[in-house]
């Protein structure tokens, strides 16, 4: 295989890892985002227990994204990280608060302590999501690179557009979290999650439309990609599918006959929306990895490095997906009140 082919494969693999992260940590961050509306202690316990066995594996995809970028696109890693210094560091700090609260809130010895860890969990989820959204917006707007190094300032990431993407991601993760709870819980909590999912669903669709409308004006390359004649035919199905999936999600959220498949359907639709938004982003970006300066081939590590890790990835990623799937299957079904974990 040529170096270009391997770099292309890796670009897809890293994009997949990031997407898996967005989906999986998206719904468990989303549960934290919904905490201000989930008031009762028991409901909160149930909500946390739906994600407790899997959050750690979900977050490993974030490490995979970071380490993968370092391994196969080191130049992208070395320019994006300094450019997004503040949001990345704040995200890491927020994830600390959130990550430890899973255990701590069950170790709390007074109601006050418990409340404090609930706050750490919820605020940590908000802060981590906001930072990811800010990082996404700043990244899409472009990163100034000179002589293999970041050449901008340390507040460049803060723009109206990055604030918009931050808000959009909070709403989007909230939707994923609400749909996840519709799937994994029952009774009042589930009803409440349905209501939240409906409201967040409307907001998500509006924000997707708004971000999509602004995107083509950020970089001339994006505009050509979407509005040049033959390309528009390939790009057209994306918004159409967004509308269809949105419609299907709302329909499923109204059907409350308790059929287990129906409870999972809104979550699948929400994932579908994320997939489409992500695909739209991919269509705009390709083949840039640090817009607008570097393509994936500019940033690629030498062929030997990429190939060495690709051999392992080809064997290991299917195995990882298999046992991750197994763990999800093992913890399938509704999570109930009153059964002890800890």
């Amino acid at each position, binding site marked *: 295989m040529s170096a270009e082919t391997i770099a292309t494969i890796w670009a897809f693999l890293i994009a997949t890892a990031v997407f898996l992260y967005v989906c999986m940590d998206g719904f468990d961050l989303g549960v934290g985002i919904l905490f201000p509306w989930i008031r009762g202690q028991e409901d909160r316990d149930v909500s946390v227990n739906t994600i407790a066995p*899997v959050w750690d594996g979900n977050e490993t995809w974030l490490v*995979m994204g*970071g380490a*993968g970028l370092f391994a196969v696109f080191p130049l992208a890693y070395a320019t994006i990280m300094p450019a997004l210094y503040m949001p990345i560091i704040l995200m890491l700090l927020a994830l600390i608060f959130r*990550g430890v609260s899973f*255990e701590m809130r069950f170790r709390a010895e007074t109601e006050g302590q418990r409340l404090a860890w609930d706050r750490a969990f919820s605020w940590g989820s908000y802060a981590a999501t906001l930072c990811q959204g800010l990082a996404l917006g700043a990244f899409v707007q472009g990163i100034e690179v000179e002589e293999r190094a970041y050449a901008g300032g340390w507040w460049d990431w803060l723009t109206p557009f990055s604030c918009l993407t931050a808000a959009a991601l909070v709403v989007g993760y909230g939707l994923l979290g609400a749909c996840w709870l519709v799937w994994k819980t029952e009774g009042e909590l589930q009803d409440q999650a349905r209501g939240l999912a409906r409201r967040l669903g409307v907001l998500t669709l509006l924000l997707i439309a708004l971000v999509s409308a602004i995107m083509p004006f950020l970089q001339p390359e994006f505009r050509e990609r979407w509005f040049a004649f033959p390309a528009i035919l390939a790009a057209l199905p994306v918004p159409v599918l967004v509308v269809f999936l949105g419609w299907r999600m709302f329909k499923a959220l109204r059907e409350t006959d308790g059929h287990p498949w129906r409870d999972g359907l809104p979550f699948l639709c929400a994932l579908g929306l994320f997939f489409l938004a992500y695909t739209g982003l991919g269509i705009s970006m390709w083949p840039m990895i640090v817009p607008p300066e570097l393509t994936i081939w500019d940033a690629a590590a030498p062929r030997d490095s990429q190939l060495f890790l690709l051999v392992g990835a080809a064997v290991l990623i299917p195995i990882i997906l298999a046992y*991750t799937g197994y763990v999800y299957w093992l913890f399938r079904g509704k999570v109930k009140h009153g059964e002890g974990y*800890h």
Partner: protein
Amino acid sequence: MLWDALPDALLLARIQFAFTVTFHFLFPAFTIGLASYLAVLEGLWLWTGRAAYLDLFRYWLKVFAVNFAMGVVSGIVLSYQFGTNWSVFADRTGPVLGPLMGYEVLTAFFLEAGFLGVMLFGLGRVGKGLHFAATSLVAIGTLISGFWILSANSWMQTPAGFTIGPDGRFLPADWWEIVFNPSFPFRYLHTITGAYLTTAMIVGAVGAFHILRDRANERARIMFSMAMWMAATVAPAQAVFGDMQGLWALHYQPQKVAAMEGHWETQRGAPLILFGLPDMEREETRMRVEIPYLGSLILRHSLDGEIRGLKDFPPDQRPTNVPLVFWSFRIMVGIGCLMIALGAVSLWLRFRGRLYDTPWFQRWAVAMAPSGLVAVTFGWITTEAGRQPFTVYGLMRTAESVSPIAAPAVAASLAAFVVVYFCVFGAGMWYLFRLLGKPPLPHEEGPRDDQPIRTAGITPAPSAQRPPARHPEPAE
């Protein structure tokens, strides 16, 4: 403005990395040993059917869960810090070091994270054999993780199997030589053994603490006995591994060894300096307490072996903080000697049949609780501070590795890390102490789901629904 502030930014970035990595490693140092210990306990339970082993498994599993979570979140920070604070290093060494970290994620992190859920929440949900498999996979995952990260770190100490491209990047030439670079095997062995001893000291201290309160507590006696076997056998072995690593370092990094030993002049028949004050201005070690010829005997295995002193190297090739290297090394070795003594005394008491009935010995074991963590930390400080002023030894300087980030940004993030780490991990430690302050009892409640657990003031934590067909135990 950016470039004027850079010297400060470099120092701040170094402090930040030192702080986050030192804090982080406390958790894996304990986790690696504890994961293996849990696998042993569960294996013994399955093998012997003795309930005490299951109780101990559950007792330590709760500790493991808290500790593992802190290790995960403090570790994610590191995987991004290479890019945020050391971007030039990341760009130039990425082709060599990146894939090693990539393999760490693929072979270890996913394995640990994936099966941790089964390990913590799966008792009663999967069969015993499968649960034991999950525990073992988590333990194996910690060892694999150590393998890759030690390989990467050792490559920075003894780079091998690479070429340097025209743009200054390190390019891989031979992966076998990169992964199994000269210092890696001994450093891996030394680190894992250190982690096992760290765990043994904590387990032994907790056992001793509860024996002091209730001499009849069978579970406390079991854990104390197991930990003391570990100290008696592994602590002496660690001294041998440490010696091997010293000989390796003398070959590849003589400056570091000279700093560890406090030698400034090259000499034959060098003494072993036990204590002294290395003075970087005057280039000598003042107020030495030394044993003649022993330095040469240890490092050269001959009485008149030559040992090179720091003055043999240009000042810009010497470790930048000799007293730090010198003292860190002594703290590590001193604690190692105390562990060996603890193990030896335990054998004697065991032989006399008084292992559980000697309060002064139990108190000593309690005092040794943090000794492993301290020794591991100062061992790392010795080796990393001794590697300065380089990131890739002899080839890339720390000063040329740093990101072009303005000093205020690094300073702000450093302050945030310090505050958050002390608050969050301080609280975590406090909960760990609370857990360990309770004695291990029969029918230890673990993270299990076959009965609701009600503690005063806390609503019970609910669990996931079990598929009823496979689990006939009574519901709530």
